[in-house]
């Protein structure tokens, strides 16, 4: 009797835990689904053969409310990432999108970025992130940032190494209100940072942080760190404290096994809470997988609304059916 089997199973599970029952027929499957719906439990997966016999994976209780778990600012659709370009002055050995000086530029273009930001704001996006590549290699990055910041809070990711000449003028042209700079720095001392990002890059990045702070920008510092040694992170935070970076603006994330990274955290659509990402190649599930075909949502970039709707729907379904909750990957 499938209902008795379900009741016995639920008695062994805490809220949110999962288990399996077998069903012998389509009628038993239907009865199990009715019982779960009636009792506030959830059928997660159905694995049955042509005769209807097989296994159901069920969860005790309903899925948690993603809004309560993630918060309004991390719900799918709250953030829009745009890869302004893919070329970069650096060739970091863990870059999740394989950027380098030789990488094709694949620019989104200032006009399209402005249109996308407008459409996103109208749809209900809360915040824009501009990344690359190195955005400050673009001669019109100032105008790009201004067009976004006029609509939504905007963060620009940069290695802060090209703030001179034209790059400096573009930086100075960017409004301080509604804009944050997220600068990459991996360690409190040059060795680890330079080992991944190139000799002398740490010194230039720190100089860039000081320059940006001096110009009155809000600066967030993001480190990409694999297996930190004891004391490494506390030294890093102490160093950033001394620079004047607020603790909430000190981000540490693991290396993702994407792009040119030979190792790192393995990420899939099912394991990631989406952060909608637009590149010149299409719309992707998350910025950390913006060259990963498995994370491609659509090649069609404009209009953006169908992709925003589709990702929200897909996430809601994934959240309801997942045997474990998707995780936030802190790109920012």
């Amino acid at each position, binding site marked *: *009797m499938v209902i008795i089997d379900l009741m016995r199973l639920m008695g062994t599970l*805490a*809220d949110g835990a999962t288990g399996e029952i077998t069903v012998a027929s389509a009628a038993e499957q239907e009865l199990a689904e009715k019982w779960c719906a009636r009792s506030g439990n959830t059928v997660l997966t159905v694995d049955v053969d042509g005769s209807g016999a097989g296994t159901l994976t069920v969860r005790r209780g309903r899925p948690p409310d993603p809004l309560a778990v993630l918060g309004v600012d991390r719900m799918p659709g709250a953030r829009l990432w745009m890869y302004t370009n893919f070329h970069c002055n650096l060739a970091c050995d863990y870059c999740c999108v394989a950027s380098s000086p030789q990488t094709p530029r694949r620019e989104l273009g200032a006009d399209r970025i402005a249109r996308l930001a407008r459409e996103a704001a109208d749809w209900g996006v809360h915040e824009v992130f501009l990344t690359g590549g190195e955005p400050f290699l673009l001669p019109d990055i100032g105008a790009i940032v201004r067009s976004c910041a006029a609509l939504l809070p905007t963060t620009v990711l940069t290695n802060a190494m090209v703030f001179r000449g034209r790059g400096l003028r573009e930086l100075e042209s960017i409004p301080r209100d509604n804009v944050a700079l997220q600068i990459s720095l991996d360690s409190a001392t040059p060795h680890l940072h330079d080992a991944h990002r190139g000799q002398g890059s740490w010194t230039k990045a720190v100089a860039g942080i000081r320059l940006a702070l001096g110009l009155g920008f809000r600066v967030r510092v993001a480190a990409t760190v694999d297996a930190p040694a004891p004391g490494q992170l506390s030294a890093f935070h102490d160093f950033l404290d001394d620079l004047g970076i607020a603790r909430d603006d000190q981000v540490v994330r693991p290396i993702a096994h994407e792009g040119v990274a030979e190792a790192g955290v393995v990420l899939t659509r099912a394991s990631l809470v989406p952060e909608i990402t637009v590149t010149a190649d299409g719309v992707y599930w998350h910025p950390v997988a913006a060259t990963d075909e498995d994370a491609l949502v659509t090649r069609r970039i404009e209009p953006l609304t169908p992709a925003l709707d589709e990702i929200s729907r897909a996430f809601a379904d994934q959240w309801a059916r997942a045997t474990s909750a998707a995780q936030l990957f802190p790109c920012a």
Partner: protein
Amino acid sequence: MMSDPLIVGAVAYTPNVVPIWEGIRAYFNESDDPGAAMDFVLYSNYGRLVTSLIGGHIDIAWNTNLAYVRTVMQTNGHCIALAQRDTDVGFTTVFVARSGSGLTGPGAIAGKRLALGSADSAHAAILPLYYLARAGVPESDMQVIRFDTDIGKHGDTGRSELDAVEAVLAGEADVAAIGSSTWDAMGREELMPGTLDVVWRTDGYCHCMFTALDTLPGERYTPWVDKLLAMDWDNHEHRKILELEGLRHWVSPHLDGYKPLFAAVEEQGIDPRW
């Protein structure tokens, strides 16, 4: 957390008891009233819970009806009932048989094989016999088959009732006595058409009760009880706790609902301690 929170004891009859009580504790400890602060201790059986309450190791016990009755008996009435679930009031025992059996009413159970849950389950063993006897069907008129598969938990796991139902479905018993909450959880007639029919249902009685000794000062338990009764079904955070514990509202004690069990315990010679 206050330095001197009330300590509430409960029995861990399923892993789900842990998130239930963590949720309840969070509700009390976020209170504006520090006098309502609490922590909880989980026991493996109701005998140990009652012993700990009487021994002063905990301030309040979340008792089954039998544990409440035993607390009253062991303390000679020097205990106080604090609150219970709305679903603890008007609880019934449901007698079910295979569909098509044609059995209706208590008289039809006479001479039949009656499957009961664990002997210390008030709703699936003690009170079924009590109410049948009142209806003119003494135990001696039936073949009683007991499933003592969750002794110590007072039937809370539901396991012994499911065993009794399976015995009926397998043709090894004619009628099973189960709690109305188990019958509801099974889906009642809505999910059981052609499988099980209700033969008879007892009058309503009371089930669980928060219980303290009468030595616990009112100023210690009153803020806690007030906060308990203030849980609001329309509040999303409160509702999560209420749904897990199986109620809509906490209510003040309905002591009349324990009279049948007091009588049954005396009549059947149920041990006042274990």
